[in-house]
């Protein structure tokens, strides 16, 4: 049965049923916007009782209302009335705080004016849209976040299709764009950029679309302005869109320049490292070589084939401990660098003295990267230093020698001024006495004293001449002498004295060769032997023991005798006091000792003399082992 065939009452009943049971809230207003009907759903949604609202304005249902942007609606009457008075359907979203609650209830209002034969009225359809409103708010928030994220990038983001048309763009700063947006939006990149450049970009975009894989290229701006910047272009596929990509253009000029600067710096370091006039070596933090320059090869013989060697491997064994300590101190941060003299072991096993400056190389965050050692060969310097030291020693020796000569001259001057004058003055006084003496016996005594004084004077002169001759022997060259042969020759020379004293001479030459001036060694042996023979003990048979031996690597000569005790000590002040010794000319053994001692000391040897009233005398000479300067 058609609706038109129903009677009015049935129709109204059916209509009322439909309105009351609709799942949408429905409010019916008359032409004055007064509420005439509120269905059950509207009652629930608006928490009203429909009878209480009949005849009231529609706006009274929406007290404490808010618009979509959550701003309070002050003139709800005007807005709603104007909305529902429009002939066309009006749709609006409105928020309401009901019953004093803080929570907002959001409604979608849709109004439709209906014209009857006699009257006109408006349907207002209500739907609760809190869920959608919340989704909208979430989307808005996300959008806001995205905008904020985008605004933090300096990149240019373009949406480009497979043909190369630029569909959209995002850019935080319009200054970064090549063109004003209107000039490139919906335009093809072919029309914007030079052909060589665009062909590469198009190829990249199409490859990204085809393979669904991100593609990347780096390029320099095809334009002169802004000045030749560098960019990275990233073509990124868009999910579910098979003909478009997102193109991200990033300014990487700073990175490129930094990279170039780094490369230049690396190149500089490389050139400085390899062209350096001093040896340079890079060590890892565990002490192994990672780079050696040419000078290191020249100095120590190690090159690229030897990388990986630990510094211990070519440090002199005696310097390893100290080097390791300093290396550890660098790593521990106790010191930042150090300079030491150390010895390295050359590939050919030679020891090379070097000056080494070592420092820790770190990154910009002070994290240790490696150790750099700069090695300066000190061989020539050390050799020069050695030569200088030798020359210094020679000069010092020459100075000592000259001082010694000067002292001797002063002493000789004193001897002449005093010791020789004593017997001479005696002679003069004796002559006066003899001349004035009348008694024959006294004259005879004076003559005897005159003879003694003459002998004393002569003996002193002999000693003086001997001293000067031996002093002169310092100019004789050093040579290898056979002391046994020399001793035998002296024994032959002194044979008559030896026989006269019935002296027993024993020899024990464990070492026969001595490096010394021959004349002087002959003089020493003769002087010692003749003195011993001259000052024998009349109560004993003279026994002499001559021996040579090595002690502490040095040649020693000793002569023992059981002759007269000589109260001379080893004290330098006594054995070297020539004035005192010459004054003791009546026992001239010390004169000989003085002469020998002076000579031995002047060439780096030592001499000791022990005299004991019971056991006799022992004189020991220690010769210098090496050639004296």
């Amino acid at each position, binding site marked *: 049965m058609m609706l038109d065939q129903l009677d009015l009452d049935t129709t109204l009943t059916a209509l009322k049923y439909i309105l009351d049971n609709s799942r949408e809230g429905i409010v019916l207003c008359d032409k004055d916007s007064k509420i005439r009907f509120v269905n059950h759903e509207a009652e629930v949604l608006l928490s009203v009782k429909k009878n209480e609202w009949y005849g009231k304005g529609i706006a009274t249902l929406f007290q404490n209302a808010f618009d979509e942007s959550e701003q309070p609606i002050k003139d709800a009457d005007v807005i709603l009335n104007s909305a529902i008075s429009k002939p066309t359907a009006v749709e609006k979203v409105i928020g309401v705080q009901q019953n004093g609650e803080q929570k907002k209830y959001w409604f979608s209002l849709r109004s439709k004016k209906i014209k009857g034969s006699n009257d006109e009225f408006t349907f207002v359809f209500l739907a609760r849209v809190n869920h959608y409103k919340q989704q909208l708010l979430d989307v808005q928030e996300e959008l806001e976040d995205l905008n904020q994220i985008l605004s933090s990038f300096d990149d240019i983001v373009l949406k480009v299709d497979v043909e190369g048309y630029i569909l959209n763009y995002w850019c935080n700063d319009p200054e970064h764009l090549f063109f004003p947006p209107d000039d490139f939006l919906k335009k093809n990149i072919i029309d914007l950029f030079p052909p060589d450049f665009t062909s590469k970009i198009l190829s990249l975009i199409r490859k990204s679309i085809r393979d669904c894989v991100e593609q990347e290229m780096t390029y320099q701006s095809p334009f002169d302005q802004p000045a030749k910047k560098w960019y990275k272009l990233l073509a990124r596929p868009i999910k579910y869109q098979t003909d478009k990509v997102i193109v991200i253009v990033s300014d990487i000029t700073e990175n490129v320049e930094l990279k170039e600067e780094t490369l230049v710096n690396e190149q500089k370091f490389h050139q400085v490292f390899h062209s350096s006039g001093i040896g340079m070596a890079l060590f890892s933090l565990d002490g192994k070589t990672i780079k050696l320059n040419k000078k290191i090869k020249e100095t120590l013989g190690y090159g690229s084939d030897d990388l990986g060697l630990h510094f211990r491997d070519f440090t002199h064994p005696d310097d390893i401990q100290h080097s390791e300590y300093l290396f550890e101190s660098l790593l521990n941060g106790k010191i930042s660098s150090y300079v030491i003299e150390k010895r390295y072991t050359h590939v050919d096993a030679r020891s090379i003295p070097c000056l080494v400056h070592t420092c820790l190389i770190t990154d910009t965050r002070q994290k240790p990267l490696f150790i750099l050692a700069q090695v300066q060969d000190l061989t020539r310097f050390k050799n020069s230093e050695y030569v200088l030291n030798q020359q210094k020693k020679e000069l010092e020796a020459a100075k000592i020698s000259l001082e010694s000569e000067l002292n001797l001259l002063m002493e000789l001057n004193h001897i002449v001024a*005093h*010791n020789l004058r*004593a017997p001479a003055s005696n002679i003069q006084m004796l002559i006066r*006495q003899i001349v004035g003496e009348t008694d024959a016996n006294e004259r005879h005594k004076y003559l005897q004293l005159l003879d003694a004084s003459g002998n004393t004077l002569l003996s002193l002169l002999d000693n003086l001449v001997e001293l000067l001759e031996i002093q002169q022997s310092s100019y004789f060259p050093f040579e290898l002498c056979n002391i046994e042969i020399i001793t035998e020759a002296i024994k032959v020379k002194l044979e008559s004295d030896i026989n006269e004293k019935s002296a027993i001479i024993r020899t024990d030459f464990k070492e026969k060769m001595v490096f010394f001036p021959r004349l002087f060694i002959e003089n020493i042996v003769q002087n010692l032997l003749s003195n011993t023979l001259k000052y024998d003990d009349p109560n004993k048979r003279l026994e002499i023991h001559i021996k040579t031996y090595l002690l502490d690597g040095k040649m020693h000569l000793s002569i023992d005798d059981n002759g007269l005790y000589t109260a001379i000590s080893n004290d330098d002040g006594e054995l070297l006091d020539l004035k005192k010794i010459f004054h003791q000319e009546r026992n001239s053994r010390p004169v000989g000792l003085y002469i020998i001692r002076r000579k031995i000391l002047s060439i780096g040897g030592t001499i000791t003399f022990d005299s004991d009233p019971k056991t006799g005398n022992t004189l020991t000479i220690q010769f210098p082992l090496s050639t004296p300067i």
Partner: protein
Amino acid sequence: MKQTYAIMLVDDDPIFCHLFTKLLEHYPNALLKTSVFKNGEEALQYFRMHQHEQISLPDVIFVDINMPIISGWELMDFLQSESMELIQKIPIYILSSSISLSDKHKINDYSFINDYLTKPIFKKELFEVIDKCLSGLLPHR
């Protein structure tokens, strides 16, 4: 009757000592008794023992320089350091064969030394010195 005076000679040269003694035997103005000490040590021992016995001390002292054990200068040092009273009372002469200027100038280090005499010394010079000493004028430095 001639008055007797004691002369001390400190010298290790026996020939000179003999000659010196012989010379003083001929001194005309007094009788001189010469005591010889062979080195400075002997003289020092004597002084230490007899410094307070006026009768045992000599009237004039002659000292050689170069002697074994204790030299003439070392003897002077001892006398000075031990502040012996005798050095203020008795004339002291250095009598040496040394003609070294350093020796001659060294007497200036000892205010109590009267003079430096050089060997050989002969009768005239020696007697003049003795005269001076015995005339009572000395010691006046």
